[in-house]
């Protein structure tokens, strides 16, 4: 009796284990920013393909980059990262090429989405969202529309203490580079030093550095003009139509968030199916209507309520307009001098 019980228990444990192994093989692990895809994505994908999704979240590119470099990508199948990080992961050999034959919905993308500077032909990454970085401001408070990055870096007296800037390293520096007509991927020491000094001077006129709540500072009136990603400016516009977005005359960067498949993925076929699913028109539409970012997904953009294009004028930018701007690229070895410079700016008084 006792013996039988033991055998039954062992068998039961064995069954459970094999069950969990089988489930594991059919489970895809995705890491994405919180709220960056529909909350019911796992259910919808399971219903469509029978494959389970395990969704983990990362708060920043650096966080997922740290996890993936530490584990060699083990434990993750699909990652959502910004394009310079996709580029770096590719250089490190941690992601695999996208098999276009397995992702028919790539046809939903604009032709321009196949010509991105960091990955022409979408060899190792698939663009998910894209947009620009510029100035978001209260048109009812400002005397004149801002037109230059210098309006942010050398503000008029009435704007002093009413401005916020992004502190995420690449965009902080990009504001200084663009104001000087330099490339957003500048790494030579002389230019870094010049921009560093200008950004330190600009720091004294800031209300704060803010990467996450700047639009609500505009809504509340704490700030009059903020350095912003276009999609986030839309959150402000949604609450207060007097808020407007402008790309300064010196230009912007083109930022692209993309999807990649890890080389360590045990189930690349399912990973491709997932990317294909994300690229369908419904999900593309969800991205634009809920995250309020522009999407490289033409089928998704065509499906949105056209009134969004008038309420949020930056949504109406064409892919050709976006592609005029330079993308942030992986700086490789130049990152050392670059991040040292950023540390100096953040540390300066």
């Amino acid at each position, binding site marked *: 009796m006792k013996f039988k019980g033991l055998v039954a228990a062992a068998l039961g444990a064995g069954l459970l284990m094999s069950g969990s192994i089988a489930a594991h093989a059919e489970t895809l692990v995705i890491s994405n920013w919180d709220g960056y895809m529909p909350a019911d994505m796992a259910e919808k994908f399971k219903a469509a393909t029978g494959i389970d999704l395990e969704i983990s979240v990362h708060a920043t590119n650096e966080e997922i980059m740290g996890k993936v*470099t530490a584990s060699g990508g083990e434990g993750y199948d699909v990652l959502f990262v910004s394009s310079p990080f996709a580029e770096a992961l590719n250089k490190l050999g941690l992601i695999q090429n996208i098999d276009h034959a397995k992702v028919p919905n790539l046809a939903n993308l604009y032709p321009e989405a196949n010509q991105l500077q960091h990955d022409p032909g979408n060899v190792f990454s698939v663009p998910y969202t894209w947009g620009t970085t510029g100035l978001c401001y209260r048109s009812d408070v400002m005397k004149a529309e801002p037109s230059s990055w210098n309006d942010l870096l050398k503000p008029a007296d009435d704007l002093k203490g009413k401005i916020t800037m992004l502190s995420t390293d690449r965009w902080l520096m990009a504001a200084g580079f663009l104001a000087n007509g330099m490339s957003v991927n500048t790494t030579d020491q002389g230019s870094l030093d010049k921009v560093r000094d200008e950004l330190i001077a600009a720091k004294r006129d800031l209300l704060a550095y*803010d990467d996450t709540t700047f639009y609500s500072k505009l809504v509340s009136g704490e700030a009059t003009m903020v350095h912003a990603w276009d999609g986030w400016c839309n959150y402000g516009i949604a609450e207060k139509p007097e808020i407007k977005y402008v790309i300064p005359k010196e230009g912007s960067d083109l930022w692209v968030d993309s999807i990649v498949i890890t080389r360590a993925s045990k189930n690349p076929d399912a990973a491709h199916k997932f990317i294909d699913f994300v690229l369908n028109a419904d999900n593309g539409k969800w991205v634009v209507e809920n995250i309020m970012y522009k999407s490289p997904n033409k089928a998704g953009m065509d499906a949105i309520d056209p009134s969004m294009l008038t309420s949020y004028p930056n949504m109406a930018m064409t892919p050709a307009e976006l592609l005029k701007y330079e993308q942030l690229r992986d700086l490789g070895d130049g*990152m*050392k001098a670059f*991040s*040292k410079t950023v540390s100096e700016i953040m540390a300066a008084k």
Partner: protein
Amino acid sequence: MAPGLLWLGVLMVVPCLLILVLMFYERGIYGGIDWNVVTTENIRRAFDPLYLTIFFDSAQIAGLATIFALLIGYPAAYAISKAPAERQTALLFLAILPFWTNYLIRTYAWIVLLNPAGLINNLLVGLGLISAPLPILYNEFAVILGLVYNYTPFVILAIYSALQKLDPAYAEASRDLGASAMTTFWRVTLPLTASGVAAGAVFVFVLSIGNFVTPDLLGGGKFQMVGNLIYDQFLSARDWPFGATLSALLIAIMMILLFVQALTASRARGDQHA
């Protein structure tokens, strides 16, 4: 004994050794360590005036936070210890009640209170007491306020426990011998609770100097404390060796302080036994 040693070994000795080793290598391009280059450059860089200033400024802010926390915490602890015994637990409970809410949420609540369009400024402007909003957010004042608010309960607990252990007979003897209440406090009660004060002070100082959330949110990210500097090296600059060097410096400062505090505590015990 053994589980305690294991705890110390795994959670303290090993991480500290890791930090000490990382200091002497160069960063990898994408974070991590380049094990091929042994260098003392990180240490030289940590002593650059730019970063040393951050250490001094952080110590100053943490020091001010400590002083204010003691000024508020000591009277509070004293009052609680003099309250009727059956009420003391409830009062202590109230002192630590804020800890039931997440640190971030409490910090955001201060933003709601302090911002130029916030409750305090709106109230003061509305009452006609000031004409323009006071700049009380995104500066050192707000950071110190946030630190004092968050860490004063620790001071209250530390000093209360010292006051609890204090035999009332000492104060009674002092009063019987003709000392005023004031003199008794300054010359008997305060010296005998110095270990509690030191424990509370070290607590506030150490937690404050390493804090990075409060300077980031209430300071608006405009000025950094050591904690922010270290956080950024690991999570944004991806320069682990330099982050490790700064951490080692901070740990050294904290160890000196804890050593001084331990010394004060053992002296205080010695005095009582003598």
